[in-house]
Every structure is written in C-alpha cells, then in structure tokens.
C-alpha cells in the first residue's frame, strides 16, 4: 500500500514536470503557423496540440474499460471492476475536455461553438456512451450485479464507437461542411519537427496525467473496498 502511493507520488511529479514542459513548448517553442494562403493562424491553433492527445487518450481509457470488462466477465473478480470504473471516470473527464477544447477551437476558427466535424462528433458520441455507462452504474446497488451488467455495457459501448465513427463519416461525406476546408484534426502541414516534437511532448504529458489520475482513482477504490470488508468483518 505504502509503496503504491509512493509510486503514485513519483508519477504525479513526473506528470507535473512534463506538463509544464508541454505548456512551455506550446507558447514559447512553437513557431507561428501559416495556412496555405500564407496567413498566420490565430493563437487558438495551439489548442490542437492538446486537443488531439486528450481525444486519443479518451479512446484509450475506454479501451481499458473494454479490456477490464472482458476480464471481469471471464473471472468475476472485482479487481477488474475497479479498473473498469476508474478508467471510465477518468475517460469521462477526458472526453468532456475534448468537447470543451474542440468547441473553443471551433468558435475561434469558424465562429461556431459546435461544428459537426467527424472527430468532434465521434467524441461527443463517446462522451454520451460514457455518460450512459455512469448512469447504469448509479442505477445498480448490489456490487456484483453492478460489475457484471456494466461490464456488458462497457463491451457494447466500446464496439459501438468505431461504428459511430464510420457512420458519421458517411453522413459527413453526404453533407459536406459549409465552412472552410479541413482544418480540423489532421492538420495538413505538420511536418515541421518543432510541431511534431511539441505534439509528442503534449501527448506524453496527457498520457502521464491519465496514468496519475487512473492510479489515484484505483487506489481510492481499493481503499474503499477494504473499508467495506472491514466493516463487514466487525
């Protein structure tokens, strides 16, 4: 137990330092970017450098929920449920941040808070699936039943998200966006090493942040379980 929290402490410090580095790079290392017409993009393009890592990590978190759910159904051990619910909680936070950063960026780039962009819409769906997962957990009281049924939903939800991606893509291709070209996500000219490096450092920073939050959450849940079982023993 003690060594676990020591590890988390180290992780937290590492996360904080890499995040500071990432922010520094974002504002002082990154050169100004020009679009195809040669105009300098406004500052909000910097959002992209953490918007994308956060989005990818929110998918990753749901991947953890998926894997832990399968393992739970296989051996019915509540430790997998702890991983599943912890990853889901951190994942919800990340998915929410994707939506916030995405709409700030959209507002600045196109003047709309919301655009039905492929990635942003997929993130919205992911967020809704997470939300539904949370609602399901809240509706169930008995721990084993909750673990079992939410594992089933965690599996279905994870599978539905890529299918949503494809159907949104299909839909978007039938109704192309009215405004602007494809500035979103893929970011046409990111060859520059400075850009790549900044993106990489940001990615590592948010990955570490995920790991930290996830392990803190897992530890909390474990502690609570232990309290419960002590209370039971008395």
């Amino acid at each position, binding site marked *: 137990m003690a060594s676990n929290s020591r590890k988390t402490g180290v992780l937290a410090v590492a996360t904080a330092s890499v995040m500071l580095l990432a922010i520094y790079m974002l504002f002082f290392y990154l050169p100004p970017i020009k679009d195809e017409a040669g105009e300098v993009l406004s500052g909000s393009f910097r959002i992209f450098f953490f918007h994308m890592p956060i989005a990818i990590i929110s998918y990753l978190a749901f991947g953890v929920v998926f894997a832990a759910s399968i393992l739970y159904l296989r051996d019915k051990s509540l430790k997998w449920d702890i991983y599943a619910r912890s990853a889901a909680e951190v994942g919800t936070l990340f998915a929410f941040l994707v939506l916030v950063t995405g709409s700030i960026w959209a507002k600045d780039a196109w003047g709309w808070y919301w655009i039905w962009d492929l990635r942003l819409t997929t993130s919205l769906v992911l967020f809704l699936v997470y939300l*539904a997962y949370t609602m399901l957990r809240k509706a169930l009281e008995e721990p084993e039943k909750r673990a079992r049924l939410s594992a089933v939903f965690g*599996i279905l939800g994870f599978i*539905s998200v890529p299918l949503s991606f494809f159907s949104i893509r299909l839909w978007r291709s039938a109704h192309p966006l009215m405004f602007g070209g494809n500035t979103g996500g893929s970011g046409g000219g990111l060859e520059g090493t400075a850009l790549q490096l900044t993106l990489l450092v940001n990615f590592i920073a948010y990955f570490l942040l995920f790991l930290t939050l996830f392990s803190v959450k897992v530890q909390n849940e474990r502690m609570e379980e232990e309290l419960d079982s002590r209370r039971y023993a008395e």
Partner: protein
Amino acid sequence: MIRSFYIAAKDLKAEFRTKQMLNSMFIFSLLVLVVFSISFGDFLGDTEKVEKLAPGVLWIAFTFAGMLGLSRTFVMETENGCLEALMLCPVDRGAIYTGKILSNLAIVFLMEAVTLPFFIILFNYSLGIGTLLLLLLILFLGTFGFIAVGTLLSALTLGTRTRELLLPVLLLPLLLPVLIPAVEATAGILAGNSIGNLIPEIRLLAVYDLVFFVISHLVFEHVVSD
C-alpha cells in the same frame, strides 16, 4: 435453434391475443408522424425540405415506438418467474436471446409496416414497387440492429429501479451507428436513388447487425445470470 422459434411463437401467440403492445406502439408512431406533419404543415408542398426532414421523422417514430415495446418485452417473462423457467429449460442462454429477438423483430417490423402507408400519405410520397421493396430492406436492416441491441439492454435493465428511463439512456448512444445510415439510406431511396448508390449505408448496417448480434449473443448469459 428450433427452440428459439418456440420461444418466439409463444411470445407472438400471447401478443396477438391481446395486441396490447402492438396497438400502443402503432398508435404512438402514428402520433409522432402526425405531430411532425402538422408542425411542418406550411412547407409540406416544398419537396426539397420534405426530402431532408421526412426520413429522420420516420426513424424517430420507429425508434421511440420500438423502445416502448422493448421495455415491455421481458416484463411478460418476469411476471410469474417465467424467465427463470426458461433458464431451467435445456437450452443455452443464447437460444433465449435469439427467441426474444425473433419475436421483437416480428412485432416491431409489423408496427413499421402498418405505419409506413400513413407516412407515405402524410408526407405526400408516391413510391413505385421497386422503391418500396428497397425501403423495406433498409427498414429490416435498421430494425434488426435496433432489436439486437435493444433486446439485450431490455434484459439488462430488467432489475434496475428506473428501468423505463434507463433503457433509452443506454440504448440511444449505441444506436447512432444504425440510425445514421438508416436515415441516410431512407433519404436516398425516397429521393429515387437505386441500390447501387446505397452500398455504403447497407454495408454499415449489415456490419452493425452482425457484430452486435454476435456480441450480444455471447454476453447475454451474463445479463440474465443471477
């Protein structure tokens, strides 16, 4: 497999005796169509607008009416402990899931088939037989996906306190990959496209149906085990 048919036949026999679910689902979907038709009243003559809106309206009507039926599908089984009786029968849990899918599919598809003529009238369509068959194909593919997930989730929400509310909350986000291509394909068909133009939609619907049927079949035992 044959026993899944026995389960479905039993469900349908009970349903057609009272027609409770079928009637309320049909009336509900009709009401949705009427409400939308009235609220679009002014531009029902404007084909371009109707073509954009009507397919979505049709699927909203079907989805919500279908959900009404789904939330009742396992209630019949719990009334006298019948679900337990089914689980005591010498069949695997997957066969129970398949049986429920068959009966739900039959009931919801019937509701849709009865609603469709009203949709065509209310939104001033005139469809040839080829178009109609194509539309039925899309209805089937979309409805199958809806039922495959909906049946599983209706069993899953059975033991929760807020069952009626929880089912749509869980179901709708998972249905997006069915609803989008279904609406798109319906719009395409109503606009006169041939099957050749609808391949991407049909492919997505088929993949969804297959994936979710197989996965749900596999996990169903965990949903009903006590």
